[in-house]
């Protein structure tokens, strides 16, 4: 397990991540994916590749199809046409449990049920591994402990979830996802409603998961946070990928103004571009 150096700054993306990613196996692949709800098509031919060890940011305006993309990848919404592979296996061939052993989702605005203890909630992450009528195995318990230590919630194990702060709650939800020992980790707006310190803490934990070899798909509204946490980015607009590449390739003023339909300024800095809308 690689420890990230320095607590003040987030580990610089791209440096070690990209090198690792080049050799690492592909853990998620989408080809020409179309999907939608009822008569309303949302995604129009999405292509995407994610390797173990890298953090891929998915950005785009409201209604661009970011959440729909998460639903498709997690098999909550059926693909109309096109293909999805998770960890080398076609999505259609994976049952719910089999998928949950390969892919974990940290959902947007996750609810934690009142009365449960933190340890119990994280242990739920082992659901796809635990067999009916059996308790969790020693391996399950080891994974739970690992995930809790990695996210810094080990000390909260006996705490009822309703006593947690917002930042602690999100770390518990992340610990639950990490306890699945996934190859692909999908984070859907993990930093919303968190203050700066917790935003940084959470994204640092996501980068650490990537450093451990997990492919991280990070859906974020906040372009500046995304710029600092991602190795590569995907700009989604109206259900299409309009830009893909490194952070500096995607966060370009003309692209962003077209996608978001508003004027923006992009300032470059050593830690990556900063995007500010004109008001």
């Amino acid at each position: 397990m690689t420890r990230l150096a320095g607590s003040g700054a987030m580990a610089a993306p791209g440096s070690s991540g990209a090198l690792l990613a080049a050799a690492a196996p592909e853990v998620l692949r989408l080809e020409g994916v179309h999907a939608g709800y009822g008569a309303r098509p949302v995604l129009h031919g999405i292509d995407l590749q994610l390797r173990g060890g890298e953090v891929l940011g998915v950005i785009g305006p409201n209604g661009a199809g970011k959440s729909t993309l998460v639903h498709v990848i997690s098999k909550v919404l059926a693909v109309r046409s096109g293909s999805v592979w998770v960890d080398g296996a076609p999505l259609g061939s994976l049952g719910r449990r089999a998928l949950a052993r390969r892919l974990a989702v940290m959902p947007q605005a996750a609810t934690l049920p009142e009365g449960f203890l933190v340890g119990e909630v994280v242990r739920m992450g082992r659901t796809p591994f635990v067999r009916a009528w059996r308790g969790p195995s020693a391996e399950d318990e080891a994974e739970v402990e690992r995930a809790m230590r990695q996210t810094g919630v080990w000390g909260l194990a006996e705490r009822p979830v309703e006593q947690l702060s917002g930042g602690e709650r999100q770390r518990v939800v992340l610990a639950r996802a990490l306890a699945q020992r996934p190859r692909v980790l999908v984070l859907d707006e993990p930093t919303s409603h968190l203050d700066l310190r917790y935003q940084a803490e959470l994204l640092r934990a996501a980068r650490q998961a990537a450093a451990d070899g997990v492919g991280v798909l990070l859906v974020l509204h906040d372009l500046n946070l995304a710029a600092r946490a991602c190795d590569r980015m995907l700009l989604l607009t109206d259900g299409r990928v309009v830009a893909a590449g490194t952070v500096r390739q995607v966060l370009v003023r003309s692209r962003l103004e077209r996608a978001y339909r508003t004027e923006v300024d992009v300032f470059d800095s050593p830690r990556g571009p900063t995007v500010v809308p004109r008001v």
Partner: protein
Amino acid sequence: MSVARVATVGVAVRRLTRPLALSTLALALVVVLAAGIGSVRIGPADVTAATVRGIEASVRAALGLAPLVHVDASQRVIDTIVWQIRLPRVALAALVGAALALAGAGFQGVFRNPLADPYLLGAASGAGFAAALVMVAGGTLGALGGLGVSAAAFVGATLTVLAVVALARRGWTLPVVPLVLAGVVIGSCLAAGTSFVLLASREQAAGILTWLLGSLAFASWDRVGSLLPLVLVAGAGMLAAARALDVLQLGELAAAHLGVSVEALKLGVVLAGTLATAAAVSVAGVIGFVGLVVPHAVRLAFGPDHRRLVPLAAVWGALFMVLADLVARTVIAPAELPVGVVTALVGAPFFLVLLRRRSGA
């Protein structure tokens, strides 16, 4: 067992064995107490001895052996009172209470709502309407406490819930809000039907009303025997679903992300809960409040995880029901109160105290 191994790792684990053992012991004490109280008081030792002799006699009869002859006439009277009259009733009360509490725990879990109860999907109104119809039809089939009424109630409850499920389903999914709405609507229709039958049939009205309010007066070992396998099956189903029900409390989407087949889980729990409810209603009529209060109280006392909640709710449902029936048959003896009235009268204040203590703490 796995529980012991888990505890050594040190992550929060709430144990089941001790609370379940203590609760079962409490249930056993209440059963002995309840079997001893009535027009003739019988001490705990005599109740236990009579129970042992009763079991012994049943086993001998089952094996085709000649019954043991008791010389003591007073002992034979005690045996008859305990084994033939009181224990079947106490056992039936326990089973009905366990069944309703199981169903309540399952429904509250699957609907993620502490106000859900076993009758939410129309089981009570379906059973009531069918039973009322059969009673009006009269004859031996419609005799109060007869087999015809039981069968009608069971079928009525089951068919109603199946109709509600069929109405609410969207393809292969079972969305919760339409399900509850369909249950309320169909339940209201059938309740109106029952009211009409009540008004239209003056002579049988009292009998129907007695049945509707719930009674354990027609208990027998046969009924206990017919109820037991149904409750065991429903209980096993609920236990098998317990871990998935825990995960479902995270929300349907999050549960699906964790590999739970949410639609199968919902349908399975609804069916298991309906089986338990229909079985209970068929032998005891519509007894309210147990299925709402007991799982809720157990959750407040022992925590929300269903692997503990399901078995503990069954035991405490049994215990609560035995006590409620004891009150129902003794408080205005030799007359009886409808046991449904007692469960509501006792259950409501008890529930309020629990809620207040909870919010005060």
